[in-house]
């Protein structure tokens, strides 16, 4: 194991160190619980309101802890880097977040996350908390099939969390919040590209090797290699490779309204994300699709990976209103 050049001390403590800094910097907004580790709103879930929680491996910041706050998540459960949290963390976060109206758990579709959330939910239910869950699987890079692990959950998770959180904040009950989250899951698709790999602190070497003139198309958010490599080309060509599979999978028709979310993988300057946004928007407009809502930024990341993903959410009036609803978290606010 090589010592990697990162602003960290002991790699085994990096997640905890970082969460402590996060909680100190935002003490008005979040509270860190340790043993087991989870983050909750400093003011707690408003009594009688459905709580929305999520979690997963660390290394995707600000997802999920950065989305804890009014109008989005009531708790986040961070695991080790790229490793889903354990079931007892999940259970403790559910119990802590419950405001008496039940808890929706937003789970990204990875074997580890699904298994640990399943167990954690059972444990919390055994303590009398009403819990439902949705599994986000927006990554069109992965073939979906009954016989595989299915598609991964990637940047579309942000939309599920935002909209479920807004529904909870306006007072919807657990069944309604869950149904809205499912609605987002069924309408959101993403596709990503990496220009460089990332290095997991305790691994000490890049998660894959890429030549100077190659990009990796169809990457997930765990530094895993993608489906294929292509010669690096300009933003337009690369963006096309992201937008087309998304549009096709969603079967978007002219006249439809969408949210266009261009997400940075962690090491990409926002200036480049805005170029991708401009290209993606043009490609959608060419097909007659109307971009009525936009988000651009590094929100669902893969450590310091360079690259971006394009997420498209098919909007309707209710989803648009919930997207627009106020949100006050450390990473997303309007």
């Amino acid at each position, binding site marked *: 194991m090589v010592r990697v050049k990162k602003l960290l001390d002991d790699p085994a403590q990096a997640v905890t160190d970082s969460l402590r800094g996060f909680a100190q910097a935002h003490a008005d907004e979040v509270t860190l619980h340790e043993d087991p580790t989870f983050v909750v709103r400093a003011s707690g879930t408003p009594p009688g309101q459905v709580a929305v929680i999520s979690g997963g491996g660390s290394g995707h910041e600000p997802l999920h802890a950065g989305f804890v706050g009014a109008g989005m998540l009531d708790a986040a459960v961070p695991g080790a880097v790229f490793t889903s949290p354990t079931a007892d*963390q999940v259970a403790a976060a559910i119990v802590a977040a419950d405001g008496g109206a039940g808890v929706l758990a937003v789970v990204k579709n990875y*074997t580890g996350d699904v*298994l640990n959330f399943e167990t954690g939910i059972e444990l919390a239910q055994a303590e009398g908390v009403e819990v439902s869950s949705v599994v986000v699987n927006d990554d069109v890079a992965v073939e979906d099939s009954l016989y595989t692990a299915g598609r991964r959950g990637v940047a579309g998770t942000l939309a599920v969390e935002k909209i479920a959180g807004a529904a909870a904040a306006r007072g919807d009950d657990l069944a309604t919040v869950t149904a809205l989250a499912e609605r987002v899951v069924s309408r959101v698709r993403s596709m990503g590209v990496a220009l460089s790999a990332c290095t997991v602190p305790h691994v000490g070497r890049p998660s894959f090797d890429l030549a100077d003139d190659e990009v990796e198309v169809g990457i997930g958010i765990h*530094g895993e290699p993608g489906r294929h490599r292509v010669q690096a080309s300009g933003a337009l060509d690369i963006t096309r490779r992201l937008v087309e599979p998304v549009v096709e999978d969603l079967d978007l028709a002219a006249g439809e309204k969408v949210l266009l979310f261009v997400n940075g993988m962690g090491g990409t300057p926002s200036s480049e994300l805005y170029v991708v946004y401009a290209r993606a928007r043009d490609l959608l407009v060419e097909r007659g699709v109307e971009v009525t809502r936009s988000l651009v930024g590094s929100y669902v990341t893969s450590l310091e990976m360079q690259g971006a993903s394009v997420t498209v959410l098919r909007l309707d009036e209710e989803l648009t209103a919930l997207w627009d609803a106020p949100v006050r978290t450390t990473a997303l606010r309007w």
Partner: protein
Amino acid sequence: MGRSGPDDGATLVSVLDVDWAERWMHTAAADVAAARDDLTELDRLIGDGDHGVNLDRGLRAVAERLGDPAIAPRETVGQVLRLAATTLMSTVGGAAGPLYGTALLRASKVTDRAVLDASGVVALLDAALEGIVARGKAASGEKTMVDAWQPAAEAAERVAGTTDDVGDTWRAAADAAEAGARATIPWVATKGRASYLGERSAGTEDPGARSTAIVLAAAVRALQGPGA
């Protein structure tokens, strides 16, 4: 299976008691720690590069908790395995945490005895395999740890009753797990993270199958006492 022949260096007849169960876990912890970077490298190639670190963190915690006699009673093999299972579940995370945790938890339920005989070994491995399949829903051939656990359970079943030494049953299981893990190398994964790579997952051994081979070999290494 050559190791189970009559010329075998192991002259003591194996005893699968509580001490053995504790030694198994300590040996597994040591062996996984030694293989940590190799496991991580396999997972880096076709997964997300954390399997070695995950399992090492968990087994380290198991070894530590076993070292504190106050934590739980150790009157049966099952009690040792239960302590290991709950520790793994609360420290590993990822896919491997619940899978190994469930395997050992189910195994603990069928081993609530002070000493195991050969049929006890078969029951242990069968229960573990069932737990993994119940959780992960992978069939054999999908390039997961199932491909090491399943041949191990089958081999134990075959060998149990054909020899007087319960150690032979374990040796057969461990050898089968080893062969099963190696067999995954050319396969294309259809479960777990490696499945995202499609065809590109071929050519690398499944990390979870490899760690299973290590953990089951540790049960054999634990047979002949602390110094073995």
